[in-house]
């Protein structure tokens, strides 16, 4: 999966699960202050990302550091890379 495909898939989660307009989905958009997510939404975000990418991230400590969309893109890219490495 390319980085662009990952970005596209993450954006789809924000459009479908959180009904966010695509125009708002800039990499530096802050998921709390710019996109209006709250603590409940983070639980749903994790569930949606796990489903969308077929990964398990619920226990990942790094989730707590996520603030922007770019943070999510980067986080997923790292998780996917790690998975591919360990898979190979």
């Amino acid at each position: 999966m390319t980085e662009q495909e990952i970005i596209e898939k993450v954006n789809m989660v924000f459009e479908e699960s959180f009904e966010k307009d695509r125009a708002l989905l800039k990499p530096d958009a802050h998921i709390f202050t710019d996109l209006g997510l709250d603590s409940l939404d983070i639980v749903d975000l994790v569930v949606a990302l796990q489903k969308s990418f077929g990964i398990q991230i619920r226990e990942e400590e790094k989730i707590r550091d996520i603030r922007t969309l770019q943070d999510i893109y980067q986080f997923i890219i790292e998780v996917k890379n790690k998975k591919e490495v360990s898979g190979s």
Partner: protein
Amino acid sequence: MKRVVITGVGVVSPFGYGTKSLMEGLEENRSAVRYMEGWDVYKGMRSHVGAPSEMKDEKKIPREKRRSMGILSIYAVQAAEQALADAGIAFADIPRLRTGCVVGSTMGSAKSITEVFETMLPDRDLGKLGSSLFFQCMSHTAAANVAQYLELNGYIMSTSAACASALHALGTGYDLIRTGRQDIMLCGGAEELHPTVTGSFDVLFATSSAYNQTPDRTPRPFDRDRDGLVCGDGSGILVLEGLDRALARNARIYAEIVGYSTSGNGAHLSQSNKASMVRCMSDALQEARSLPEDVDYINAHATATLQGDKEEAEAIRELFGDSVPVSSLKGHIGHTLGASGAIELIASLLMMEKSVIYPTRNLENVDPDCRGIMHVMESMPKDILLILKNGFAFGGINATLACRRYDGL
């Protein structure tokens, strides 16, 4: 004690959104019951009919508020919003610190509860559950969501008493206003049609199953050929406030709540009991300082079960003889369970306003067990001053509310 009046009503019913569609459906004597596609996949499910409300405009509720709402909470919020508007209270003007809501339902969203189990149980995995499912499933979901949506700070309660839930909510709101604890209460009920809900009655052989191919012919309250209830869904919410407050702001007054009674039958969890029904109606009348002959209309609970209709007819006969008109609206809209007390009370109040009593649909031949009371079998013009609304629930719980037209005295 303060006097308590109803100044606003809102409804989502199997006839549609709002009181206009509800009253048109009743006036035209239509049936909202239909064949439920897909229910035949459930082994042992005998009843394939239901009276669903239609979900619409739910996206008008902001996502942040909507995410905690199952279907029944969306209906409740839409009914509450209508009721407030009908009462002439703008969102910005709600006196929030002194306004509460009591909204009852049998349980939380049946669809959401099913989703939780279907998601969690196959793999015994909690990680697939979203954050808001619990808020959709909890027993006080309708009350909590109405309160959050309207940003209320007063008493927030849920009355979970199956088919008596809405009357319990109204009775509780009546007490809170008349004792001066709250200034405005939004009260009523909500329920959600789902195969698991109809199934809970079906396993007890309490549902209608002989009319799956002719759904408009069932349910048949008090009729010789009745064979059980048909579940429906929706919500009814009423605005209650003190008479002094309503007069001060020149509000439209639908009626004054003058009596309320609820009681356990002390006898059986699922079987209705005539003696306790008589006591319930008598107590409500006594609180209303009225005699049986003062009552102009009884809106019966009558769901079209064999035993329930018989017991209610006998109870009414014992107290009122055949002198008071009686009808059940479940032949039109099915049994909306936790919402029924509110939806049917709203219809009754509007009948009071129009001076007409709508008949029991599908009542063609009164069952010998249900004779001796004045069944309304076609629309009856009638000046209505005092009505009784009955609700008798699983759990052996009875409730009766008495409402009197407010004529300025």
